[in-house]
Structure formats: structure tokens, C-alpha cells
């Protein structure tokens, strides 16, 4: 029953992207990013177009694999692509992206040194990705259920929260979360069995697997959950913009950190426009507006973060040096690992049925 629909979708996508290819012209900047993730904000697009004369054309992906496929199959279509740093290696290996001349990006000098020098983005002295924003997959709590915020990841396993715990329906995230809970390096999991045992004992605690921010926020709004894994930017958005009783907890055992960066695909027809767009995306003015109007992760640009009010979440909590010590940035993982993680995750979900 489902097959015709999916295939129809495939055909429609193919036709649509061909149409886009034909329509591409030099004064356009074609941007590939998650939907609703900064680059497609109408006010931002308008400001950029007014300042540079380039027209922004947004296109979106639903998974990193889809993003890579879109660049592979449409060479020359996109000018800017947002790639999670952990996927940058793969894009370079397949020659999908080109080195970026950072001298054309005035704001690049303000990117924090540890991010700009990340070995995931720089190869042979060339820069293949411009760090944009970073954030955490940590815990968030329903403030109504706690007198005092917990400090340990073990709270997720506490019998008091049985049936009121949530975790995201994502194999890689779940396995890496299990690695942190068992005191391991998320990028070099030595003892997979202990991760499996730990996650197996977590499953009966779980109410449901969330997949979107909206899921999480609704469950807190109707007071159905106590604690769960959540993204730092989303927890901030839930608190400041939706006025929900949510606060982020960065457990003492650590949290998973990710870094998103902009790259220029090989064969881009408007490299100049792409450079201008990336420079605008890391500009403090854009960032402050993004945080205030919508809520955003932490900018990789130190000047942009400093432009936020002193007590803002992205500055006070995420900028805390104590936090920096215990977070672990996601490194690249292979397709084989990803499929193994998915198999483990599906098995865990079946066992708990």
C-alpha cells in the first residue's frame, strides 16, 4: 500500500529538482539546509537579498543521507550546504565540496579557535566547512516534577519516573547516550554490550520515543513526562518562547555535542554569493535576531555570543567552562556503524514490546 506513494514522491522529487536545475542562474544562491533552521527565516532572507542583490533559493533535507544524495545527484545546483561536522569527512572523500577562501569572509576571524581549527572541517591546511552553530543533546526536565534539578544521568533510570521518561527515536543518538551513561567515549565505544545492557534497562521506563520538538513540548504542556533527552536549543525555545516549565540539565557524566557548519559544494555557480551568504549566517546581527525572534543553538562566532544579554541561556549555561569540560563532540561514523546502531536500536524497541 505504501510503495506507490513513496515512488510517486521519488518521481516528483526528480522532476522538481530537474526544473530547479534549469532555473538556476548566477545571481541566485541555492541553499540546502534543514527546514526551519535559520537560513530560511523570511526576515533573514530579505535582509541578505537587500544587502547583496543575490536571490536566495532554499531547499531542504530530512536526513544527512538525503542531503549527501542531493549534492551527489545535482552537481552545480547548490551553492551553500549545511553539513553536520561529523559528515564533512564523507563529503570531502567523495569530492562533493570545495575548499573555502576564508579571506572573503570577514566574520570568519571571530569564530572561536577550537571550532575553526576542528580537524573535522580542515584538511591539508584548507577549510572545507565554516563552523556555524553548535549545541548539545542533553537532558531536559519538567520543572513541575522536580524540587531540585537532578545532576546525574542516572535520574533517567530512577523507578520514581517509570513511564514518564522520553528518548528520541534515533539510533545513533540513543547508542551515544548509552555510551555516556556507561562512562565511555561516544566516538570510540569499546564495550557495546554494557551499552546494550544499560539501554535495555532504560526501555521499560520510557513513555514514548519523540521525534520532533513539538512532541516534547506537548508532553510537557500536558504534564505527561518528567525527564528525557532533548536538544539544548529546543529546551531554550520551549522555556523562553513557549513559556513551558522546561529546563536543560547537563549531567555530570557529560552530554553529546554536535557542530553544524556551512560548506560550498564543488561546481557551485555562484561562489561569491555563497561566501556572502555564509558570512551573513555567522554575522552577530543575524544571530542575535535569530535568538531573540526564534531561539537558536550557540553560535560558533564568539562576537555573536558576546552580543547576547549576559544572562541569556546560550551565554551563561552553554558558555560555562565547566560545561565545556564534560561534553563530547560527535565525530564521523561509518555507514556500517550506523547500520549496526540501527539494528541494535530496533532490537531494543522490539524486545520491550
Amino acid at each position: 500500500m505504501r510503495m506507490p506513494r513513496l515512488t510517486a514522491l521519488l518521481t516528483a522529487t526528480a522532476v522538481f529538482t530537474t526544473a530547479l536545475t534549469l532555473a538556476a542562474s548566477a545571481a541566485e544562491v541555492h541553499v540546502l539546509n534543514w527546514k526551519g533552521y535559520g537560513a530560511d527565516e523570511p526576515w533573514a532572507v530579505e535582509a541578505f537579498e537587500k544587502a547583496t542583490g543575490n536571490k536566495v533559493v532554499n531547499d531542504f533535507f530530512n536526513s544527512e543521507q538525503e542531503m549527501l544524495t542531493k549534492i551527489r545527484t545535482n552537481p552545480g545546483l547548490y551553492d551553500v550546504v549545511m553539513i553536520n561536522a561529523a559528515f564533512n569527512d564523507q563529503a570531502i572523500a567523495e569530492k562533493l565540496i570545495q575548499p573555502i577562501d576564508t579571506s572573503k569572509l570577514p566574520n570568519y576571524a571571530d569564530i572561536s579557535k577550537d571550532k575553526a581549527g576542528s580537524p573535522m572541517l580542515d584538511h591539508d591546511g584548507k577549510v572545507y566547512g565554516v563552523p556555524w552553530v553548535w549545541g548539545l543533546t542533553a537532558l531536559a526536565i519538567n520543572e513541575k516534577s522536580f524540587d531540585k534539578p537532578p545532576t546525574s544521568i542516572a535520574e533517567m533510570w530512577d523507578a520514581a519516573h517509570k513511564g514518564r521518561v522520553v528518548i528520541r527515536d534515533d539510533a545513533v543518538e540513543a547508542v551515544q547516550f548509552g555510551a555516556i551513561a556507561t562512562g565511555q567515549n561516544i566516538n570510540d565505544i569499546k564495550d557495546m554490550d554494557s551499552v546494550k545492557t544499560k539501554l535495555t534497562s532504560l526501555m521499560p521506563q520510557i513513555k514514548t520515543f519523540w521525534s520532533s520538538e513539538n512532541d516534547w513540548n506537548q508532553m510537557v504542556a500536558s504534564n505527561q513526562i518528567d525527564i528525557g533527552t532533548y536538544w539544548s536549543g529546543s529546551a531554550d525555545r520551549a522555556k523562553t518562547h513557549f513559556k513551558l516549565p522546561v529546563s536543560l540539565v547537563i549531567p555530570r557524566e557529560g552530554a553529546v555535542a554536535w557542530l553544524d557548519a556551512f560548506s560550498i559544494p564543488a561546481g557551485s555557480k555562484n561562489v561569491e554569493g555563497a561566501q556572502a551568504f555564509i558570512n551573513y549566517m555567522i554575522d552577530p546581527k543575524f544571530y542575535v535576531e535569530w535568538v531573540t525572534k526564534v531561539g537558536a543553538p550557540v553560535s560558533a562566532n564568539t562576537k555573536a555570543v558576546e552580543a547576547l544579554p549576559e544572562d541569556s541561556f546560550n551565554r551563561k549555561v552553554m558558555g560555562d567552562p565547566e560545561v565545556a569540560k564534560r561534553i563530547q563532540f560527535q565525530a564521523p561514523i561509518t555507514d556500517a556503524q550506523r547500520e549496526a546502531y540501527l539494528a541494535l536500536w530496533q532490537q531494543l524497541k522490539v524486545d520491550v514490546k
Partner: protein
Amino acid sequence: MAVEGAVASRSGLRSALPLLAPAYLWLTVAIFLPLSAMVFFSFMTELPLSGKPWAFTLGNYAAFFSQSLYLTLLLASLRLGLEVTLWCVVIGYPAAYVLAKVLKGRSREAIFLLVILPFWSNGLVRIFSWAMVLRQGGILDTALNAVLPFKINIDLMYSYPAVIIGLVHSYVPYMVLTCYLTLQAIDDSLIEAGRSLGASRLQVLKRVIIPLSMPGLVAGAALIFVPVVGSFMEPRILGGRTGTFYGTVIEDQFVAVFNWPLGAALSFILLAVVLVILAVASPVLRRAA
């Protein structure tokens, strides 16, 4: 199929062609071609769209048999299909009987409209409405506690019953419609004859009404069983921790890991299993009908 055979046997195929052509053209373009592409994908190591080198393989089908989890989930999905179909019969058949034989005129039209009303709303909207009704502190919980003198706690959300409720609600109109058509066609004089010859109401139901309306029951059951076995949206949204089914695993392959070949292979295994079940059941059902 019977109609088609009759037309062909009258050697009227040529005159029937202009009438059949639009439907078959549409089926070829919209179903047959995409489905063939999916069959092709299911034998590949990589999706050709990905730009990586690819080769033909049986590995995607072998994956189903190498891990017990796919079989476990397939059985869970088949059980779900049977349960939902059963509840649709229990709820839909009496409703169809009342519509066909008890109500007349305006009231029949009004009730009929209410039955098909769910069809007019989007499936996702229906499922999210159920989410609001079933959860703790939701509409059902609050309403019952407002009426009942004692405190009860209703929290059906994120459970197996929630999946059943959502699916039955979505599919029960099929059962009502197919049964209504066959029940309405039963001549009232047959029922009266049975009664006048001394059969009790129950005997009339068992010996006259159910056998004559069997084609409708069978058609409704097939219409419901097949899509429910492959359902993924309702279990994912309403099922929570228990919402992992065969359909959701296929969806994961397409959406989360972009492994279309494995997703396609799993889908065709499901299709084959469903066809086998229908083929095995059809002689039994035909005799019953």
C-alpha cells in the same frame, strides 16, 4: 473480475477497450511502473540515485531471514491487522444492519452521513484528535471524572489499545459501507419467510442474513486487513513504546537511514505474505460466501 470475464466472453473486448483503457492506463502509470522500479531497487546493494557503485544482490531479502526481529514484527503486524478487522466487524456490522434494515428515509441519510464523515477529515488530524482524547488529563479522563462519583485514571495514550482504537476508527467506515450494500440487497420477504416458518430471530440471522451478506463482510475485511498490516503512522503516534511494527521499520529504512533497497525488500516480503494469506483464505471465504 466477474464483470471483466463476462465482457470478454461475449467477445466484446474490442468495444469494451475504450471503457477500460483509462483505468488500465492509469494503473500502469501510477502503480505498475513505480512498483516495478521498487522491485528493481530491492535487488540492489545501493540506490542508483546515491551515485555510488551498485550491484545486484539478494542480500536485502536475506536480511529479513537473518534477524529474528523482522519476523517478530511481521507477526505483531499481522496480529494487529486481525484484531483491528475483528473490531471493525463487531462495530461495523450491527451499524450496517441498522442502516439497511431498521432505519428509513431521513434518519437513514443522517446516520449514513455520520458514518462516512470521518472520511472527509485528514487521517493525521484524526490521529492527533485521539491523542488529545486518550491521554491522562485528556478529554476522556476529564469528562469521566467530572461525571463519576469516584476517581478513575484513564491514560490510554502510548499503548497498544490506543493503536487499536485509532485504527478501528479510521477503518470502520469501510466495513459499514461494504456490509450495508449487501445487507440492503437482501429481500425483506426472505427474512419474513424465515420468521413465518418458525425460525427465531437468531436463526434468521445465522441462516439467512449472515450468509447472504458474507460477500460484503469479506470485501470489508480484505479492505481493512491489508492496509492495517502495513500501517506505520498510527502506531508511531499513538503506540509510544509499544508502537514498533513492521510498517514503522520499513519507514525507518526509507526516512532515517536512506536504505531504500532494504525498505523495498521488506515491503515486498510483506506484500507476498499478505497475498499468500488472501490466497489461502479465498477458497474458504468463497465457500462461506
